[in-house]
């Protein structure tokens, strides 16, 4: 049977002691890792919504996969190689750089990194 309720399991500590609800600090830490600023409202919303999503996926914690290995490539390809030769696709630097917000002498210009 497919589970169609969104309220899955209520107890939320099955996976490595993961908390049932993400705190404000958890969300801020994640936002920092993801390099994304969030508004106060978003922090509140995401703490609720991510907790619900994590609770939903927690059903996997009960699945026995001790005999199995993870799948990373689904059609079985490994180490796809090509000749190490330069190929000219005919793009001028300008064509490839015209979407860059700030360019100087064909180089990306960014804000200072410290301070």
């Amino acid at each position, binding site marked *: *049977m*497919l*589970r*169609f309720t*969104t309220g899955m399991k209520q107890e939320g500590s099955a*996976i*490595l002691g*993961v908390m049932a609800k*993400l705190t404000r600090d958890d*969300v801020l830490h*994640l*936002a920092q*890792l*993801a*390099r*994304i*600023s*969030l508004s106060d409202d*978003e922090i509140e919303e*995401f703490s609720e*919504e*991510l907790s*619900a*999503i*994590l609770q*939903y*996926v*927690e*059903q*996997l*914690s009960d*699945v026995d*996969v001790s005999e*199995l*290995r*993870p*799948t*990373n*490539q*689904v*059609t079985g*390809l490994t180490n*796809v190689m*090509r000749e190490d030769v330069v190929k000219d*696709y005919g*793009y001028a630097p300008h*064509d*490839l750089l*015209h*979407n*860059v*917000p*700030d360019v100087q002498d064909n180089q*990306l210009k*960014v*804000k*200072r*990194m*410290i*301070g």
Partner: protein
Amino acid sequence: MTEWESIAALAEKVRSGELKAVDLVERSLQAIEAAEEYKAIIAVTADRARERAQAIDADPKGRLAGVPFIAKDNFLVFGAETTAASNILKGFEAPYQSTAIEKLEAEGAICVAKANLDAFAHGSSTENSDFFTTKNPVDPTRVPGGSSGGSAAAAALGLAPFALGTDTGGSIRLPASFTGTVGYKPTYGLVSRSGVVAMASSLDVIGPLTRTVADAALVLDVMAGKDELDSTTIDRAEQGYLVEAADLRGKKIGIIKEYMGEGLQPGVKAQIEQAAQKMQQAGAELVEISLPSLPLALAVYYIICPAEVSSNLSRYDGQRYGYSFPDAHNLDESYMASREHGFGKEAKRRIMTGTYVLSSGYYDAYYKKAQTVRTKLINEFSEAFGNVDFLLGPTAPEVAFKIGENAADPLKMYLTDIMTVAVNLAGVPAISIPCGTSENLPVGLQLIAPQRADRDLLAAAAAAEEVLA
């Protein structure tokens, strides 16, 4: 609604001079203008399309000579911006074209417009588009499905003879089901994704949305095959993908038990059962088959997908292309603010979820665990295909829902994909074809085949299309 002949017939008539590419392009552009209220289209590529049409009329050749098409706006295409329906990519002009577009153009097809989608293909309704929501042509108060909702609506409205979509967890099949069109999701790697905005790279595929299986097969046949620009691509079948309808006699079809139970709308269930019976009358052998891990597929998907999304979206950093916050004082602030203002709610939600499941201490419990349950699921598909030729079930548990109905609850929206995600996790091909209506809304029948059996799947789908007509 604009009616078109088959793609093969249109191209033949352009090659023979009976039809002009310029007229087909005008017909398509007029159809787009007349159907503006459905908001299927983000931008038209009219100037480039007209130029190409003139060139084709001067020397008409190619298997798709003069045939207009519409690309989902996550394909890099010349002649208009490529936005993926996101604010962060507004203004982005493709410096090169995607391989799929290049292959279609090489056979004479002409891109006339870019279709709406959930921003970055994150969604099941187009309501996550940063620009606007597409309306379902069958009932404009309802969603067309997503994420390729604009492409599906375009195909349903006949804005062009075919449209392109992408399918990461059902984004071609679901909108095909909701709009009464044909949506084809090929074997993983069969169509190059070079030049298509990446969502979740171990799941993403490209495919057509059309009115018939034969049209889908022709478009796939042109696009399929290895590409040095996408190292995940696989060899095309030697015989290609143009197929006659299969003889269903002796074909063994497994009805997926887990997809026919609780949660399936009764009207949808009735149509699927009736379709299966018609295929049986045409000679197919029906068996019920169980893939016990299918109920876990959505949980696996909603770990793997956001993990890969968070990685793929890290490139939108405000420095290389796309929106850049103008008043940042340093680089870190520029990253943080550009992404804050450039990404919509769902992209942020997935970035955050993905960052969580990949973060130190949680990687094994979530991402690795999901990839391992994925193996279990793949094994169950393999076992099933040891017993049957094809699997059959609904594409979605429901018919198209009302605009706004699921918008407030992300998890409820995610559940829309419950019958489509497993196919992406297993990398197998699947198709959604129209299968009657429930409450006057289209129902989609999903047929699934083993990896690389695209040719057999299309032949079986063509046969199903005949018996369901």
